[in-house]
């Protein structure tokens, strides 16, 4: 059982990457596919002892008002994330290449939302 006060977790950017406290359940990231949506969306995170319990907890924490038809739970430490410091190298080169953006087409109204 975890204790109520917060503590750093493995694999979060904000905290130092120390070991999870022994009394604390691991952190899980929760993705839910809504009835009307096509893909799973990240909705938040929670603590659970294992994957099965993470899905049960997600059901209680995030789908109590009938929001979803499918739940994914991923242990936070299993997610590889880009670092904010690399922002420049990763994304800025795209800014001066307008031809990469499909802004030169007139989209017919019949297409609807893109």
């Amino acid at each position, binding site marked *: *059982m*975890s204790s*109520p006060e917060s503590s750093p977790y493995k694999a979060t950017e904000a905290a130092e990457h120390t070991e999870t406290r022994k009394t604390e*359940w691991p952190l899980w990231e929760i993705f839910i596919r809504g009835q009307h949506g096509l893909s799973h969306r990240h909705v938040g995170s*929670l*603590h*659970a*002892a294992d994957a*099965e*319990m993470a899905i*049960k*907890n997600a*059901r*209680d*924490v995030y789908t*109590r008002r009938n929001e979803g038809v499918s739940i994914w739970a991923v242990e936070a430490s299993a997610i590889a994330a880009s670092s904010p410091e690399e922002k420049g190298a990763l994304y800025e080169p795209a800014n001066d290449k307008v031809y990469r953006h499909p802004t030169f087409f007139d989209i017919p109204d019949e297409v609807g939302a893109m």
Partner: protein
Amino acid sequence: MSDPLFEYLCRLGDNTLVLGHRVSEWCGVAPVLEEDIALANVALDLIGQTQLWLGLAGEVEGDGRDADRLAFHRDVWDFRNVLLVEQPNGDFGQTMMRQFLFDTWHLSMLKALAGSSHEQIAAIAEKSVKEVTYHLERSTDTVIGLGDGTEESHDRMQKALDRLYPFVGEMFLSDDIDAAMVTQGIAPDPASLRKAFDAQLDAVLAEATLTKPADDFAHKGGKTGARHTEHLGHMLTQMQWLQRAYPDASW
């Protein structure tokens, strides 16, 4: 004796009302956020079922009492819940053991009631089955996880089982009211549910490495209203204080 059907509906409604209130006592103070929310969801499900059962009880009685009236304007001796559900929360383990024992009985009872000759009872049971299936899944997992967990969690779960097991037997006692329900095809004989319950209990306890108490002694007097434990009266002073202090107050 009043109408057996009214009595019977009060038994169903008071079980869910009293347990729903008990579980709601964890709101805001459960050991972790996730469990807090899950327990509140269970409590809300049970209160929702109470509205249906006691609402129907009031209709059957035909005395103008609705679900709220029955919930908040009766005293201990009028309550017809089994003794198990009024037992105090204790620690989290005791709460989950109580939940598991009740859920196991509750689900098999509701499944039988879904085939009731009484159309409204069958409909309420069918709706409740979906909710209680999930309650049972959750409480079973927790009992196994904590029972087969650390030395401390195991000890606490064993203590909880020893404390609560004497209240299991009452759920399967049959009396005149049950007999009247069986005759009309409204509800099953509670005693007929015992065998499956025991099998399920044994399987879960084995996985949880817990030992069922050898003594089969059963406290009784809750569902007949003859002798509730001292805990129910204390609970009602909390649950009913507003209607007691300001009778008929409304929003």
